């Protein structure tokens, strides 16, 4: 189970327009083994979705550019693939659950047709029409929708049910990697819990590796083995879930994220939000990108980007860890 499925090395993504260049993702590294789940956490605009789209090679053709870095999936570089091989990987080996179930279903196709579509496109072992329909029924019952509703159209479903259909579409080919891009953001809280439980259960049953993109630390705690915290296009802290939740040292940004969550056990007069906003990705600061908002920022932080400090599985990019016991300095990429 420790076979490496996906390896992202020094990946940067830019959106170039005539006026400006947006540095959406900057030199990120992570890898994912078969069957594992990694959580990508961060504020809106941190580059989480861009990372996901670049894995699928779905960046907008006219504006999205990858100046450096590589994405290797099952030993093959995604960006060296022919168009045909790419179509084969999308849907069959890598599937994506989109953020908004309201708009990610085709309004004029029945849900059954939409689920069957991926099977028909990737029908390498010549399944018959009956077998495909049987598989559609099976996936629908797996996500808790009665197969008798497969001839219904998306507008006849509630938001939670639509998201179940979207999940069924992603899982129908039993992909090796599932990218869930904020799968519950558009849903209300009770449905969120159901959907998260379902995703977790299905992942465990099918042994699918998963990238869970979210800004909800609770979801990460429930689902992920590893966590990468993104800020302004960089992974500023990465490690196992235990490292992030219980580690001795954490990145000031991660600490800030946690103190923005209401705590039921402690009585606090007010929450502690992180002051300020994420830096403009067209003009990133010279030093640490979190320095303008960081309560511990020094002059060094404002001028020099921090190196990565490593302690076993836990990696943090922050000057504060300089000279701390057990943390070794690594070259910044």
């Amino acid at each position, binding site marked *: 189970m420790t076979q490496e499925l996906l390896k992202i090395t020094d990946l940067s993504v830019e959106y170039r327009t005539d006026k400006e260049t947006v540095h959406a993702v900057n030199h990120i590294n992570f890898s994912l083994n078969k069957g594992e789940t990694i959580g990508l956490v961060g504020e809106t605009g941190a580059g989480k979705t861009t990372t996901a789209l670049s894995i699928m090679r*779905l960046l907008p053709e006219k504006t999205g550019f990858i100046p450096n870095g590589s994405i290797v999936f099952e030993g093959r570089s995604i960006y060296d693939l022919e168009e045909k091989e*790419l179509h084969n990987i999308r*849907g069959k080996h890598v599937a*994506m659950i*989109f953020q908004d179930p309201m708009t990610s279903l085709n309004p004029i196709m029945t849900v*059954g047709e939409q689920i069957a579509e991926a099977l028909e*496109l990737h029908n390498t072992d010549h399944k018959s029409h009956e077998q495909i329909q049987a598989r559609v029924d099976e996936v629908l019952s797996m996500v808790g929708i009665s197969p008798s509703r497969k001839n219904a*159209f998306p*507008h006849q479903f509630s938001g939670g049910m639509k998201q179940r259909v979207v999940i069924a579409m992603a899982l129908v080919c039993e992909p090796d990697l599932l990218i869930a891009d904020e799968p519950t953001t558009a849903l209300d809280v009770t449905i969120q819990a159901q959907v998260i439980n379902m995703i977790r259960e299905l992942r465990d049953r*099918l042994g699918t590796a998963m990238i869970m993109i979210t800004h909800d630390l609770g979801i990460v705690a429930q689902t992920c083995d590893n966590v990468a915290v993104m800020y302004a296009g960089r992974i500023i802290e990465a490690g196992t879930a235990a490292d992030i939740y219980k580690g001795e040292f954490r990145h000031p940004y991660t600490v800030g994220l946690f103190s923005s969550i209401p705590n039921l056990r402690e009585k606090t007069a007010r929450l502690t939000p992180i002051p300020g906003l994420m830096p403009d990705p067209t003009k990133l600061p010279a030093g640490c990108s979190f320095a303008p908002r960081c309560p511990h920022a020094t002059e060094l932080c404002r001028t020099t980007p921090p190196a990565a400090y490593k302690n076993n599985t836990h990696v943090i990019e922050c000057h504060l860890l300089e000279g701390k016991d057990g943390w070794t300095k690594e070259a910044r990429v």
Partner: protein
Amino acid sequence: MSTKYDDSPLMNLTEKKVEVNFKKESQIKEVWRRLKKDKLAMFGLSVIVLMIVIALCAPLIRPYSAAIKMNMRLKLALPSAAHWFGCDGYGRDLFTRCLYGSRVSLTIGFATAFATLVIGSMLGALVGYVGGVLDDVVMRALDIFSAIPSTLFAMAVVAAMGSGIFNICVAISLTNIPGFVRIVRSAVLGIADQEYIEAARAGGSPTLHILLRHVLPNAIGPLIVQTTANVSSMILSAATLSFLGLGIDPPQPEWGALVSEAQEFLRRSPHLLIFPGILICVASFSMSVLGDGLRDALDPRLKS
């Protein structure tokens, strides 16, 4: 891949008997069921079907010779029991001429509207979805086409290729394609940005598949409305060509030609204009109500 499915505890396809679901047929039935509820659309459909049947059965109703046989004693005769629509300037029976004219006019109307629909939607969807240089080249080329007055353009085509129904159809289709491409392109531009198109790409669909299965079906509303409007406007375009002497060769009748012949006698014998005029109006009205009904019936979101 077969082993992958066999190993999975979730796949127990082997012995499972599944009721086969003929979804294509059931969807057509569904559309038909919804169309039937629309009284006005059904009226339009009945009229169109009736016109086609009458056009096909024309030889059983009146012989063709009656449409071209001149009889100067009956010149400009008023409608009577023997000549239901009266007679034209050469004493030919107007009813028979309208009857045989419907064959030509309906053929031109439907054939050109269909050709425009197929070529225009493929081209429009392609340039709208692919965009970039292809979009620029095709759209600028079409701009040049539309800069030439359409009648002049059709005349040039007919003059170059010669008259005859097929060449007239080609000429009329060509003049209408640029406008149609523009309509399809704008509809497609709106649809291509939708998240379900991105989801389809993420599912591994090739471009052509996305165009045919996801983009065009979502643009069907404006396509149908434009196509049904085209049927009647193309009958009139054919009339313009006939009027200019570049259409159907006389004495073969055609609705548009009948209207233009009638204007010579407009004051004395308005019935020559009224009968073919009514036929053109009824045909185009029926087409457009049928088109509206079809658009609604094809949209599952409007399903009650």
